[in-house]
């Protein structure tokens, strides 16, 4: 699924060759017209003047980017100072997405390794078990997570009952809850690419190292890890990218203090802020961050393909 993005090797020229452009045309038209063009329009909108409570006035303006970076006082006539509010939102988003990626890696790597070393017949079943929750409605998963974690929820009830804690943990509305939510949202993106590289790994290399008296953790660290590193990088980027722009997990689990880029953008269009150019500018900044990450991903998979 996700591991195939960005690469496609064609094969076999055949009867359909003369028709190929006609066959691809509908996809080009639909995505070009309803996604590519709109994204270019977002870039244009980010340079327009805002209209009060939604919409734009077609006049060139740098106000959106200015508002993002500088604080010019209530009436806009003070000397500009750096405005940290939005930079902080982006910083927090990068941090939360990074932590979620780390969490996915810590739990996803052993899982992927374990699955890849099962007998061939049962591997598919294990993989299936790990990917099924991904296809369950993200909103329902997030609501379920909130239900489980909240102070009077089953997890805390259980911990109180067993006596592990004296009072509820208070996880909801913290950064940790957001990280757990993001982890829950995108874990399969970590497991699948790592699984793919470990499955291709030749364990004879590990055996050779073990024959030379390396203990298993040394084998893991010095022999296996460097070889499966591309899978780890790919998985990390595939988790990091959607986490960065996530809306539901931070919105439902994070509370007011932990809101991320997604909520900031949502607020400009669905909320009270109603500042379309600013929302567009934030979207473009988010998109450029994602493109940087995807660029590294493409380079990584390109290297993998050549190896």
């Amino acid at each position: 699924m996700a591991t195939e993005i960005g690469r496609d090797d064609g094969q076999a020229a055949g009867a359909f060759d003369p028709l190929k452009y006609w066959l691809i045309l509908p996809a080009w038209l639909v995505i070009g017209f309803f996604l590519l063009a709109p994204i270019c329009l977002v870039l244009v909108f980010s340079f327009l003047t805002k209209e009060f409570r939604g919409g734009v006035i077609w006049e060139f303006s740098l106000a959106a980017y200015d508002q993002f970076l500088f604080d010019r006082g209530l009436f806009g006539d003070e000397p500009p100072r750096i405005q940290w509010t939005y930079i902080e939102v982006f910083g927090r988003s990068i941090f939360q997405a990074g932590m979620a990626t780390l969490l996915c890696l810590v739990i996803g790597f052993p899982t992927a390794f374990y699955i890849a070393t099962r007998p061939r017949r049962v591997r598919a079943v294990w993989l299936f078990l790990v990917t099924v929750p991904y296809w369950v409605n993200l909103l329902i998963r997030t609501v379920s997570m909130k239900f489980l974690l909240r102070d009077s929820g089953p997890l805390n009830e259980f911990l109180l009952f067993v006596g592990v804690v004296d009072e509820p943990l208070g996880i909801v509305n913290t950064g940790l809850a957001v990280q757990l939510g993001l982890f829950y949202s995108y874990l399969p993106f970590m497991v699948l690419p790592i699984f793919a590289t470990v499955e291709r790994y030749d364990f004879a290399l590990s055996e050779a190292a073990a024959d030379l008296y390396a203990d298993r953790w040394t084998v893991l660290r010095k022999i296996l890890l460097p070889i499966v590193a591309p899978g780890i990088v790919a998985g990390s980027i595939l988790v990091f990218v959607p986490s960065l722009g996530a809306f539901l997990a931070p919105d439902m689990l994070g509370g007011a203090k932990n809101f991320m880029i997604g909520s900031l953008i949502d607020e400009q269009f669905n909320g009270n802020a109603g500042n379309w150019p600013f929302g567009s500018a934030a979207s473009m900044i988010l998109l450029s961050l994602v493109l940087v990450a995807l660029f590294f991903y493409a380079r990584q998979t390109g290297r993998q393909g050549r190896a």
Partner: protein
Amino acid sequence: MSKVAYVKRYTGFLTMTMVCLTILYAPLIIVAIYSFNSSPSIIVWEGLSLHWYWDVFFGIESGKFKTAAWNSLSIAVMASLTSTTIATAAAIGILRGRAFRGRNLSFMLISMPIMVPEIVTAVATLIFFSAIGFVLGYSSILVAHIVFCIPFAYLPIAARLRGIEPVFEEAALDLYASRGQLFRHVIFPMLLPGILAGLLLAFIVSLDDFIITNFVKGAGIETLPTAIFGAVKQGIKPNIMALSTIMLLVSIVCVTLSYLLSRVGSHGGRE
């Protein structure tokens, strides 16, 4: 113990796998269990009942849910059928035509809806519709869904098509099959499991979408996810848990079917 087993077995990896599966499934299972709670409170357990399922179908909010469910289902059916048709054509064009200059670009364009953050797609679509004066409502949701369903339909179809040896097509052509016959009698039957898998995935992805739908739906129309989101804003109620459990089952059934379909005869010919 053999050396192979030695380097393949790490203490704690099985535990981590179990932790992983527990985190993945515990919230869903717990919500499913609590949906059978007879108590109107989500905190106290008062015993098994189907009361909240009854409430979803016949209760005070059932009208709202039924309209939302109808919107969700009809949009998902139309969006998945349209996007699967577009994706099938594109897959055949990309994989069964000779290499051409725009091939990689075509593939990148098709995967674009997956690569661009959902919230950016949502903003872009909203801005575009408002700029061209497209009235927000049922049809704007449908168009947006068709767009982002295309890559989800494309991936299993392309995977299947890549696995079909060109010899079958060559044989058919040697026997003077026309292009139409070739598609109808050779490619389509062999590609069908991939097409159905793609159709089901597109269907689920459309049924599940919240962010993009929430941006482009306009006022006065709800799909199931936006209705649920609106409802949980005031707190999680038991009827929402029952509704969630029903949707959870629908998703799991669809994914399981899609998984089984993509395995049918994946090693050439049917099992």
